[in-house]
């Protein structure tokens, strides 16, 4: 019964991974070569792009998780309407949030008109603050909804029991609430981090021209050199995929250690 889904995924996703690695190792003439990898690792633009991608992904994830926790805390005891409002950005494509960000935060945008000149130029900011702002806006509600889903009636009953047994608010948070919400928060954060590291429609719209993110770097490589660029892009994307998988593996390992402690 599992076979159809597993075979399709192994063929399509497994095929994509094999195709990506093959693209980075096999030249157009069919010879195996490490040239694409050597070229990539020697390119100072690649190091900048890698650093920038990690910086944007980590900052977006940490800020989105913190904002998500605050939102969940504020809306926990409220009804359906606030949660529906909170859910508003979740199904909206990233590209649309970035489009809206340009409209609001770009030079002469609505924020400028409402508040006078903004103290920071977020769109095309060299530190990637525009990209981070879009990801936090889009992902904080997603993480808040995951946390709120874990805060069901069972948790409330356990919290009340802890209070009756004399737990202080801090002890209740540390020993009852946090263990219930950290799992969904961690899983959500891994997805956010992987997405922020790998997607490129948001950096294309609100990111700086230089440095690019790794995905934008790969995209530009295919544009500037149609033949060799394919291998460079494939090598960069292989490393990016490994980074995302490594982050997920580390997070899961860390979570297991915490559970076992």
């Amino acid at each position, binding site marked *: 019964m599992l076979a159809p889904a597993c075979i399709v995924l192994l063929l399509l996703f497994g095929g994509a991974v094999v195709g990506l690695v093959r693209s980075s190792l096999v030249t157009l003439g069919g010879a195996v070569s490490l040239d694409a990898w050597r070229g990539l690792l020697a390119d100072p633009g690649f190091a900048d792009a890698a650093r920038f991608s990690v910086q944007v992904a980590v900052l977006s994830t940490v800020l989105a998780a913190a904002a998500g926790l605050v939102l969940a805390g504020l809306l926990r005891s409220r009804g359906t309407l606030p949660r529906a409002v909170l859910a508003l950005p979740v199904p909206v494509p990233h590209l649309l949030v970035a489009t809206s960000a340009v*409209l609001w935060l770009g030079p*002469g945008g609505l924020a400028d008109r409402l508040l006078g000149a903004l103290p920071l130029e977020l769109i095309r900011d060299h530190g990637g603050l525009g990209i981070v702002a879009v990801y936090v806006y889009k992902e904080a509600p997603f993480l808040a909804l995951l946390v709120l889903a874990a805060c069901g009636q069972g948790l409330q009953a356990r919290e009340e029991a802890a209070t009756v047994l004399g737990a202080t608010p801090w002890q209740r948070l540390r020993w009852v609430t946090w263990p219930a919400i950290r799992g969904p928060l961690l899983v959500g954060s891994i997805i956010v981090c992987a997405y922020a590291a790998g997607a490129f429609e948001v950096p294309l719209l609100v990111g700086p021209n230089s440095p690019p993110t790794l995905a934008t770097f790969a995209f530009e490589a295919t544009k500037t050199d149609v033949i060799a660029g394919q291998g460079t892009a494939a090598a960069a994307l292989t490393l990016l995929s490994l980074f995302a998988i490594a982050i997920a593996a580390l997070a899961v390992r860390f979570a297991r250690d915490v559970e076992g402690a």
Partner: protein
Amino acid sequence: MRRPSAVVVATGVLFAAPLAALVVRAFADVWRAPALLPQRWGGRGFEAAFAGDDAIPALVASLGTGAATTTLALVIAWPAARVLGERRLHHPAPVFMLLAMPLLVPPYAVGLGLTEWFLRLGVTGTAAGLVLAHLAVVLPYTVLLLLSGFGPEIRGLEEMGRAAGLSGAERLRWVTVPALRPTLATAALVSFLVSWSQYGTSLAVAPEQPTLPVVLLPFVGADPQAAATLSLLFLAPAVLALLAAVRAMKAPA
């Protein structure tokens, strides 16, 4: 009726205003700074967005790819979701790892890797290629959402159907599908949305057959009004998804 609190109103403004501004921008023929409202309203955005040859085929490609991917994903995911949802597997971890991988690996990487094979198969730039590439990204979401609907309750209902003499097809038609309807609707909607939002995958496997997001992006810098107009089209399924979610939240358990 209780009045909404300041927190709720602030959350509402924070999350609704940015998207609402897209509606105003789409119908603002002239909107020069520092004015807060447009100087002239009109439909120039529609004319500009659809003036080229790209927008309508892109809209059709996005709708067709989304519908085909969703249908295929539901059919393929159903048996796997059933096994995983009923916890019939002793060691489900490898299957869940396989399902998690496409959520972690960048969509552009999946697209570029598939292009390597699609070129040989002659499906690059075709509708079939787009659907297959989207399926690689959509299928894990479909399985993970659908499995939450299966469990002892559905099994119990099906047993009752069997005892009442219903055939396999009749049980599926009259028992399983109606009982799973909310989960099925959510899985279908999210699967469609994931396909609808794909940018990197589509750009890699079918640059010659652009989808709506691929056509929309260059407009953002070149013609913000046309970009906002296309954004409203792009937003429509998300609004439907949200309305459906609110309805599901309000429905009695």
